[in-house]
């Protein structure tokens, strides 16, 4: 059961509960009456518990006016008055009492949703952080995965693509695995979630709890090793017949969050290419440097190279090349004028694309039933023309307390997501983030006439220049702008998630405290994707178009039965859980593709002539589990918690598919001890520790897709030879493969002092053992490897969250939250060989995962302009002999002289969050920062060393070596790359980002009452407002391994809106 009891709701619930409990109370002799009020405002406290000390069964609760009447037995001396969220008080019994309760440190009593239940913060022995719905409400994110960055200590996040509707990747406490997933488990309303995260409307979320250590997450067994993100949606919380209606509307615009790289203008570009051709003449043709300039101009203008097209059609200046450039200086003449200037990326970027979001919510209830319902519509247009995301969501949550002992509820969410995306990736010409972004500035998008004016049709339409005479690097026979409009990538998905529960609770008699709950959760996702290549130009011109339809259907359910028992006997309080759960996941995939379309704009397969793909498959994955937990505390001073889960997973062979996961945790509220009790300035000090093991079975293949049958050796039947059936062996059997286990230790201190300074300091040591590794095999055995449990890795770190109320008054409040964290990752053990080497990275025992492994630059040779490298002598084992370094220019040998050169993992990162309140105004800003770590920015590297003629260069290329004697760090420009990746390509990943600013004004209730409005807030918010990095254009948060790719730039959103409640 997921209660999420906060504030007013909590109080009212307690009132109800106590009413129920009062039935069995005994009658006695002395009558006491009194009033309980809050010390803060003198308002009556409704539902406060008043009991006789030492006779807990004799008591009552206060009524709606805070009053109580209690008949106490003779001899009773003291009453204990308590209320959740307030410090309990003892009063000597007098006939008439007036008791003022002091609000306690609220966050301690706050109830948070944890694994299979709820817990008050003070009793929780594990490590968890809560992000409240109200904080999410400030954010302009379509997927909640983008809201975690900077909000929770221990979480690392990528920036996420700017593709509308897309999310970000998140890891919690480092990288636990090499070949299995590092993604946390998402749990929605108590059930592991298989749907799209972006199918959840962030406004429906009441809270998110991030479970970080074993004590918090071990109950998720085989799937909890990477941490758990528990999302809890809103519930009905209105009393009586009250119905609250909420309307929220937001309108905003997007722009690039990260600026484009600084690239060359037309004359700089021609001068740089000239230099490359000149160097080519000298190096490859042996031409005298004095004559090379003239030869370079001839080569540039030749039709064969296509550099300037036919008849210099791509010369953007008003002089022919021979007159334009001086062969000696290589400079464009100063009086040259540009005849056209067309920027490909600008042309396909939308100007101020709109993001609009509307939501309507209802929250109501009667005596027994409470409900919420919401509808929302989001339309987000992309920065890239043609891309967009539309989402329609509807959620209904109903809970009924049918009988005192019977409660049930259902929570259904439907979301329809429509995406228009830019489907191509990497260095495919149709990927405009590659082709348009780095197109040389001399090439026009539209056909030009001899005078370099855009050719217009009779209707005034422009036509695309498909560049049949452009060089291949500038996309011969391709126009990425045209392709963007003429091709089509769409994605529709229907997402249905349902959660239902039934709860039977015994409130009296010998079974008092015993509760049986059963949950059924299902996630159904039906995704339908269309990829269309037009028959005229681009990718599928040769085959007269190509259309692919893909349908993926995912259905999964979780069914569990939980038995809980909760009792408090004097100072001993305990609750016990025993449960069974099973999970089944079924995925069906169907794909069809045809070529040969009679004309363009036909988006259904029926129009195509030839079937090129007809394919389907099914995958199944199941887990069965038994688990239990015991929580115990003594006098709310000493807390212990233990949990055990045994999981069976279909991913492993029958002999090895059951595993045990467990945790032990304890905490000690030192501030409750007598020696600190008197210190009024100490509100709380708790120390805690936990240890346990969690599992990870989420094996991935090299493409990052799940592997469900890792242990099996199979003949894959997908290899027919023409019309004869064919099969090949695709994997090696290893029946021993089983879970990877994370052994997590957590130590923490929580404190709250002076009622205004609170914080959590934690240290964790997360060690992965029996690591799921795709154990490298000799490729000559026909396989690159097989899955096995070998190796180990550790992640250790400190986390600190400190919140303080800097200024507190009736009119003005200012609070700051500081978050800081460190991660140290170390690969402890691999397989039989101690390293796995990649192109620019290495996984080696004793080093950080995915360390950069590159040759070190020794600068640029002033004599030749060649890049120089530090080589070294090796001993018989091939290891470097210390101090034997020498310099070489041999780029083809450089690969053999690489050294470990850092990794993406930063030394320190965190955030600063400021909240201001002044009368009705509220203002907050969230700054995130990261210090240390490196990025191998492939985009920048390709701008410094383009693979093809026709691609633009970074402005930094202007520093390139040109003549003997030049001292510079940029080697000479050449036509065909002759440099190896060096540490010069590693860019400092440190950054500071202004992640979010939110400003709001809440109208006074007294004003609103007159117009029948309960609350009204106007707000403006900005997301990804500013980013400071070491290199303009680089996204330091592109991924966790420190590479970059040609992909949709992340976006900034600025929006304003209104939030109104009736």
């Amino acid at each position, binding site marked *: 059961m997921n209660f999420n009891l906060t504030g007013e709701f909590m109080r009212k619930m307690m009132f109800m509960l106590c009413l129920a409990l009062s039935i069995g109370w005994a009658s006695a002799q002395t009558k006491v009456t009194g009033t309980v009020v809050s010390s803060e405002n003198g308002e009556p406290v409704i539902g406060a518990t008043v009991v006789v000390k030492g006779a807990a069964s004799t008591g009552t609760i206060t009524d709606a006016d805070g009053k109580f009447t209690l008949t106490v037995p003779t001899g009773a001396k003291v009453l204990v008055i308590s209320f959740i969220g307030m410090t309990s008080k003892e009063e000597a019994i007098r006939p008439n009492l007036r008791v003022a309760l002091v609000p306690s440190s609220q966050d301690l009593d706050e109830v948070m949703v944890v694994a299979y239940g709820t817990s008050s913060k003070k009793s929780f022995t594990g490590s968890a952080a809560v992000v409240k719905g109200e904080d999410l409400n400030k954010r302009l994110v379509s997927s909640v995965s983008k809201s975690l960055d900077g909000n929770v200590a221990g979480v690392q996040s990528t920036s996420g693509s700017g593709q509308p509707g897309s999310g970000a990747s998140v890891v919690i406490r480092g990288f636990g695995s090499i070949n299995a997933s590092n993604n946390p488990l998402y749990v929605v309303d108590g059930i592991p979630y298989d749907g799209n995260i972006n199918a959840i409307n962030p406004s429906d979320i009441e809270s998110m709890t991030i479970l970080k250590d074993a004590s918090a997450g071990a109950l998720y067994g085989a799937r909890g090793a990477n941490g758990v993100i528990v999302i809890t949606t809103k519930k009905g919380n209105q009393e009586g017949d009250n119905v609250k209606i909420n309307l929220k509307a937001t309108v905003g615009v997007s722009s690039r969050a990260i600026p484009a790289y600084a690239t060359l203008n037309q004359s700089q570009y021609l001068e740089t290419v000239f230099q490359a051709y000149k160097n080519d003449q000298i190096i490859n043709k042996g031409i005298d440097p004095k004559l090379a300039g003239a030869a370079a101009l001839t080569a540039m203008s030749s039709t064969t190279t296509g550099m300037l097209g036919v008849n210099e059609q791509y010369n953007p200046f008003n002089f022919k090349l021979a007159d334009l450039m001086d062969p000696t200086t290589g400079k464009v003449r100063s009086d040259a004028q540009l005849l056209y200037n067309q920027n490909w990326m600008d042309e396909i970027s939308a100007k101020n694309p709109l993001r609009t979001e509307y939501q309507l919510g209802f929250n109501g209830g009667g005596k027994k039933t409470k409900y919420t319902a919401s509808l929302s519509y989001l339309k987000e247009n992309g920065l890239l023309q043609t891309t967009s995301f539309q989402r329609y969501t509807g959620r209904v949550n109903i809970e009924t307390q049918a009988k005192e002992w019977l409660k049930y509820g259902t929570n259904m969410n439907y979301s329809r997501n429509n995406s228009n995306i830019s489907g191509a990736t990497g260095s495919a010409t149709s990927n405009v983030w590659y082709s348009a972004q780095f197109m040389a500035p001399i090439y026009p998008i539209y056909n030009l006439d001899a005078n370099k004016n855009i050719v217009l049709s009779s209707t005034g339409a422009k036509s695309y220049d498909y560049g049949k005479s452009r060089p291949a690097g500038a996309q*011969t026979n391709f126009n990425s702008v045209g392709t963007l409009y003429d091709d089509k990538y769409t994605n529709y998905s229907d997402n249905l998630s349902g959660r239902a529960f039934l709860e039977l609770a015994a409130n009296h008699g010998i079974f008092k405290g015993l509760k049986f709950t059963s949950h059924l959760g299902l996630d159904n996702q039906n995704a339908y994707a269309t990829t269309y290549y037009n028959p005229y130009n681009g990718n599928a011109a040769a085959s007269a178009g190509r259309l692919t339809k893909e349908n993926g259907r995912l259905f999964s359910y979780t069914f569990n039965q939980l038995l809980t028992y909760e009792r408090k006997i004097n100072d001993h309080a305990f609750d016990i859980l025993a449960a069974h759960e099973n999970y089944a996941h079924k995925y069906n995939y169907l794909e069809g593709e045809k070529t040969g379309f009679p004309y363009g704009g036909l988006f259904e397969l029926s129009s195509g002539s030839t079937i090129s793909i007809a394919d389907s498959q099914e995958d199944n994955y199941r887990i069965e589990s038994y688990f239990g937990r015991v929580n115990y505390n003594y006098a709310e001073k000493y807390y212990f918690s233990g949990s055990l889960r045994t999981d069976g997973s279909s991913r492993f062979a029958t002999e090895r598919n059951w595993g045990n996961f467990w945790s032990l945790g304890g905490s000690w509220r030192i501030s409750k001890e007598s020696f600190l009790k008197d210190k009024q300035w100490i509100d709380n000090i708790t120390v805690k520790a936990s240890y346990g093991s969690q599992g990870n079975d989420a094996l991935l293949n090299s493409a990052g897709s799940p592997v469900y049958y890792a242990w099996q050796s199979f003949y894959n039947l997908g290899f027919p030879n023409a019309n004869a059936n064919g*099969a090949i062996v695709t994997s*090696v059997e290893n029946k021993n493969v089983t879970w990877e286990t994370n052994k997590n230790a957590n130590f923490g201190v929580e404190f709250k002092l002076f009622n205004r300074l609170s914080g959590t300091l934690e240290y964790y040591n997360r060690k992965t053992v029996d690591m799921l590794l795709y154990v490298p095999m000799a490729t000559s055995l026909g396989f690159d490897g097989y899955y096995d449990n070998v190796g180990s890795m550790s992640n250790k770190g400190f986390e600190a969250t400190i919140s303080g109320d800097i200024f507190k008054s009736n009119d003005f409040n200012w609070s700051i939250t500081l978050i800081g964290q460190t991660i140290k990752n170390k690969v402890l053990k691999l397989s039989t060989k101690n390293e796995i080497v990649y192109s620019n990275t290495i996984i080696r025992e004793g080093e950080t995962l995915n360390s950069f492994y590159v040759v070190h630059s020794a600068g640029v040779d002033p004599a030749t302009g060649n890049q120089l490298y530090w080589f070294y002598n090796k001993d018989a084992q091939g290891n470097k002999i210390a101090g034997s370094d020498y310099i070489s220019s041999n780029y083809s040998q450089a690969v053999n002289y690489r050294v470990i050169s850092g990794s993406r993992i930063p030394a320190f990162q965190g955030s600063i969050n400021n909240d201001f309140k002044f009368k009705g105004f509220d203002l907050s800003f969230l700054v995130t920062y990261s210090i240390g770590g490196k990025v191998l920015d492939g985009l920048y590297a390709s701008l410094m060393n383009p693979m093809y003629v026709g691609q633009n260069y970074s402005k930094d290329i202007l520093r390139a070596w040109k003549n003997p004697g030049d001292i510079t760090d940029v080697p000479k420009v050449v036509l065909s790359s002759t440099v190896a990746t060096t540490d010069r390509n590693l860019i400092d990943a440190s950054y500071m980002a202004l992640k979010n600013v939110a400003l709001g004004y809440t109208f006074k209730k007294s004003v609103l009452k007159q117009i029948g409005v309960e609350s009204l807030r106007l707000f403006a918010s900005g997301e990804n407002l500013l980013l400071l990095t070491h290199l303009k254009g680089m996204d330091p948060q592109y991924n966790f391994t420190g590479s970059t790719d040609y992909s949709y730039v992340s976006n900034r959103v600025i929006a304003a809106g209104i939030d109104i409640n009736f």
Partner: protein
Amino acid sequence: MNFAACTTDYLETNPTSSTSGTTIFKDDKSALVALNGIYRLMYTSGWSLSNTHQNFGNTSTSLFADLMGEDMVQHEQGSGWFWYDYIYDVRRRYTSTGWRSYATWNYYYSLISNANYIIAQETTIGGDPANVKYIVASAYAIRAYSYFYLIQIFQQTYVGHQTLPGVPLYTEPTTSASVGKPRGTVEQVYTQINADLDKSIALFKASGVSQMDKSHIDYYVANGFKAKVALVQGKWQAASDAAKEALTKTNLTLMTASQLSTGFNDVTSNGVMWGATIIADQATIYASFFSHMDPTAGMYGSSSRKCISSWLYGQIPTTDARKSWWGGYIAPASESSSGVNASYVQKKFLFKNVTTYTGDYIFLRAEELLLVEAEAQCRLGNYTPARSLLTQLGANRDPNYSTRLATMTNANTQTLDTKGTGSTPVITTLLDEVLLQRRIELWGETGRIFDILRLAHGFTRNFTGTNHPTAGLLTKFGGAEATTPDYKEFILTIPQTEFDGNTSLTSADQNPM
């Protein structure tokens, strides 16, 4: 919905697209599925983890191996596919799973491991014993074929290098307990190849089953392999005998005149002994041989034209029908940056149907074996049969061929200045003529670098009037080195993944950098 969680098979899930080894080796019919899978691999793309468009099985090997020689010109970089093979810039990329070293190694060893699984079941497959023999014979031939290419790509030629490290040899099926083998020697690899071929030929003969499909190896194709291997080993008699035997295949004739102009995308062309029929839903589209070759399709071959070297083109008499496989000289001003307007552009290999991206792959033609036999006879000094074979080949190619052949002297020495110092080389000896005919006839099919290695003469692209682009002139080799017979750059580096997983190898076992 199935809530029966507690049943024993709840946790046993299996992929829907796969079957187990026990099922597949039940009988000859099912085992044939495993064999056909291997043949499918021979035209499947995806042997590298990136750059998959330049890795599509047998024909990608013949293309990169041709581009490593001097007879095929990559007119321009285009999208960069095969360009780095052509300009000799792939060896240093051995640490990447996206380049030639990994793709090639992975490809042939995948064929080998699949073949080993079949061979291991030789005695246990049920069903028709004749068919079982045919299947197992095929697996032996596939293994031999794969090792033959591996040893040629990853080590210098056989003659003179028998004791150099070879490639790891496996004859057992791979399990997770299998351990990587050391490189052994070149001699050991050739011994295994020959043993496998002998076994294959014997089994094919014993089975009496004839070629089930053009994509299958049969008795004659296996003999063809034997001839090619013997030629590399310099075993002229064996080469001649095997080639002669291969050419006894029923109804085998040479390509007709019309097939010579259009037949290189069709396995039904005369003379085709082994090749793959590409059907529409198995076409690899951009990642296909014709995508890279066809300059008219608007695909990679259009923006990165494959051309014949102007020198070799000049050697083809104007009366020779094969001269039309290539366009002639076009003045630079008339060339365009894409399409057929490039000097010496190839037109031998064109899509059969570009709408469906289809065109068949030819892996072995009678003409190649005829040239093997001719060379072997010539080497043995049997000039008459050698001339007779050449006459057969020339007959429907050049009406003046007999006149040309008559000018050749009966000698088995190479006099042709393959280093091409600039003077017009004159074809004088019969051996020169056989080797020249190989270069013309088999252009784009067999991988010129393998002959360069075998003939131990190096090459130059910087001949007078060269049409190789500047980057292809290999000035980085410092001029002379490319002409060295066993120059280190002619063979590939072994991929890093092999060192990562093979406990029998250290980085010292890498080919010379």
